């Protein structure tokens, strides 16, 4: 500690140290992993750097990309949201239902898909139908947020409950079977092209930019970091921590529902089984992306890179004809490795 006199203004204790190469590598290890994976990909397969394969890769990543963008908010506050996979599935089923002229449709008995599906009868124009579906996802998030803040439940438990319940709701709406057939507009959301860009990828990019701006430049975004970094201190500093926490679950639910809509369009069917395990992929993308699981630190761009890393792993293993079960082993190990490296950085 240096000596200093009263009334002295800001004193620089330590000059800003320049980063060494080692530190740079640690700081940006995620992007290094990404570069290494890309290099490996291009070596193992000639087809990798074809436009076709690359757009396919992004397309595969886009669903997890959209969901994990929402998950980033939740994890930044120190929470977690296990319900996103169920919301993803329910969104498709719900949209299929309103496109058939119902808001509520309970199919307690198992019938075949074709018997129960019914004719398309869109009662709402597409934007309104999609907005309503996304809002329903937000509603599930609202329930999560209220359980976490007002009922003071641990996020893991609260969202585990809604995960199971919403999955049940999806099955109940659908009667246990996929509902085939959507209007052209919905199909376009999943399969359309904007020039070179598949529509789901374009949606992901828009989500990414919006989330990035929110987290980085708005008061709400900084409040998310503050709540995750020290909830009591944030609360005592006049941040309405409960509202912030409710909001992050609502956002997470809305983005999960949006991803579900896009997926339904892509499949041209609403499958109530869809999205099982997606919550774990989303959490993995956030973790690989360098966001602290305890909250307060991280970025959505890291999450996007994390989602691409996950997609790349699958892509490489597919191109090299590794069978699916060993693929999971490799995926698990890479998740562990990436998070381990992040830990190493954050404890330095």
């Amino acid at each position, binding site marked *: *500690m240096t*000596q*200093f006199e*009263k*009334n*002295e*203004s*800001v*004193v*620089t*204790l*330590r*000059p*800003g*140290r320049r980063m060494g190469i080692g530190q740079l590598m640690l700081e940006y290890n995620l992007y290094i992993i990404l570069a290494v994976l890309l290099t490996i990909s291009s070596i193992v397969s000639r087809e990798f750097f074809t436009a076709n394969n690359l757009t396919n890769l992004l397309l595969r990543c886009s669903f997890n990309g959209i969901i994990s963008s929402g998950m980033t908010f939740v994890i930044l506050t120190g929470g977690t949201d296990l319900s996103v996979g169920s919301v993803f599935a329910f969104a498709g089923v719900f949209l299929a239902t309103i496109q058939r002229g119902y808001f509520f449709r309970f199919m307690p008995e198992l019938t075949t898909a074709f018997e129960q599906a019914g004719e398309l009868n869109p009662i709402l124009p597409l934007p309104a139908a999609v907005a309503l579906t996304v809002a329903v996802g937000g509603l599930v998030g609202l329930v999560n947020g209220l359980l976490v803040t007002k009922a003071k439940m641990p996020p893991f438990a609260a969202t585990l409950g809604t995960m199971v319940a919403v999955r049940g709701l999806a099955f109940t709406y659908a009667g246990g079977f996929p509902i085939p057939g959507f209007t052209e507009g919905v199909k376009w959301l999943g399969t359309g092209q904007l020039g070179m860009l598949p529509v789901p990828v374009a949606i992901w990019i828009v989500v990414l930019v919006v989330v990035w701006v929110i987290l980085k*430049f*708005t*008061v709400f*975004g*900084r*409040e998310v*970091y*503050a709540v995750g*970094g*020290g909830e*009591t*201190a*944030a*609360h*005592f*500093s*006049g*941040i*309405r921590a409960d509202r912030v926490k409710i909001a992050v679950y609502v956002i997470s639910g809305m983005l999960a529902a949006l991803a579900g809509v896009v997926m339904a369009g892509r499949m041209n069917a609403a499958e109530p089984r869809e999205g099982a395990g997606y919550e774990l992929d989303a959490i993995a993308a956030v973790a690989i992306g360098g966001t602290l699981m305890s909250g*307060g*630190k991280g970025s959505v761009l890291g999450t996007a890179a994390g989602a691409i890393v996950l997609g790349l792993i699958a892509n490489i293993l597919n191109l090299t004809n590794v069978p699916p079960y060993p693929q999971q082993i490799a995926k698990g190990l890479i998740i562990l490795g990436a998070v381990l490296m992040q830990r190493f950085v954050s404890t*330095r």
Partner: protein
Amino acid sequence: MADSQYVLEMDKVCKSFPGVKALDDVTFSVKRGDCHCLVGQNGAGKSTLIKILAGAYPLDLGVVRLDGRQVTFRSPDQALRMGISVLYQELALNPYFNAVENIFIGRELSNRWGIIDYERMKREAADLIDPFGVHVNLNVPIRELSVAQQQIVALAKALSFDSKVVVFDEPSAVLTTEELERLFAIIMRLKQSGVTVIYISHRLEEIFRIGDMVTVLRDGRVVGTTPVAEVTQPDLVRMMVGRDVGMEFPARKGCPSETYLEVANVRAPGLHSEASLVVRKGEILGIFGLVGSGRTELAHAIAGMSRVEYGEIRLKGERLSIQSPADGIRKGVALLPENRKDEGLVLGMSVAENTTMPIWRRIQKVGLLDRRELRCVADTYVNKLGVKTAGLDYPVRNLSGGNQQKVVLAKWLAANSQVLILDEPTRGVDIGAKMEIYRLVVDAAEQGLGIVLISSELGEVLGLADRVLVMRAGCIVGEFDPREVDQETILARAMGVA
């Protein structure tokens, strides 16, 4: 050196962290059966030294000898088994286990069937605890015990290892005066039974009560080691800060004028009778009370951290309905909380962000945070308060305790608070920074804020406040003029003696 008179010696010990030399060539020897005190400002290297002794950090250079034999601790567990126990401020006990389970955790006694023998453990635990003359319920989870009782449990655990050296890391920070007296008695008894005590404290008067030797650390070096009998408090302070610091409080010029804050017949959680008080513009109202007297609860009720059950809070005659800290801040009532690290600051965020946190919503433009304005405000207050930081974007985690506290103050001044409640503003802050905080508090009052200063340091309350309220057991039990009252009277009132 087998029969050395020193039980513990550290010889030319160095320890660096990235960018900081925490210990520089430290030589430190402790005589068997002494109570050796260790003092120094925050960041002087006390905790690093203790952590090396406890086996929590490896050392870079130098030698540690225990009973004349060179030792290397690779883990806290190993240090403990070789006879060094450290009682940290935050006790390393499992709050959900009872005293017996805590004492024998990891080395439970078992009968010949390999089943844990609770009866025997309980007997042995009682044997360890009884000599302290304090009743401790062995059957309840220790979180239900008082802090002092928990300390006894931690101490009993330390003694169950046949520790040669017991280190107390600022035990007085969490103890009431009465509990502290009991701790002193225990330390005396430890010494009589041949145990060596290393005692760390910010409160110099304690050192003169129980210390045999005192070592002063400054900037990672030993400034000196002397018998306590041969130094005075001002000597120690001079050694700690490296210059003369008058223990005088800044002079007050202005006099309090119209009434700012009125608290009328307020009941809230933790208060056992209706509380009423008045703070005037430019006034410092001191509240003195021991831990558990309800002073923090009163502060929380006023600033919106807890709900007021009934009664009225008025600011400049206008009745306030404060449901949350955010409400309080909007109306101009702010609290500098007791626990700086959990309640005062978001440690991972920067100086600039912490300074402006309450006014983020005020400095946004079309939904976006105005970063230029944010930095400008932060810069103004950081300069005004003389916060020592490597920059506005530096995480507050890396600042010293005193500078962290100044950031909390800067935050409330930047938010244009009218009434500022300070709950133990100088806790865990070194003496130099304390003086600066006193000056800032007086400055704030001179500029027309109403200030409530809550403290368990009598000197501080008497030196700064215009009026002093005393709290005990959830009630306000007296009001004094600090110019006309002595410390004994106030302490007696706070302890319920008079």
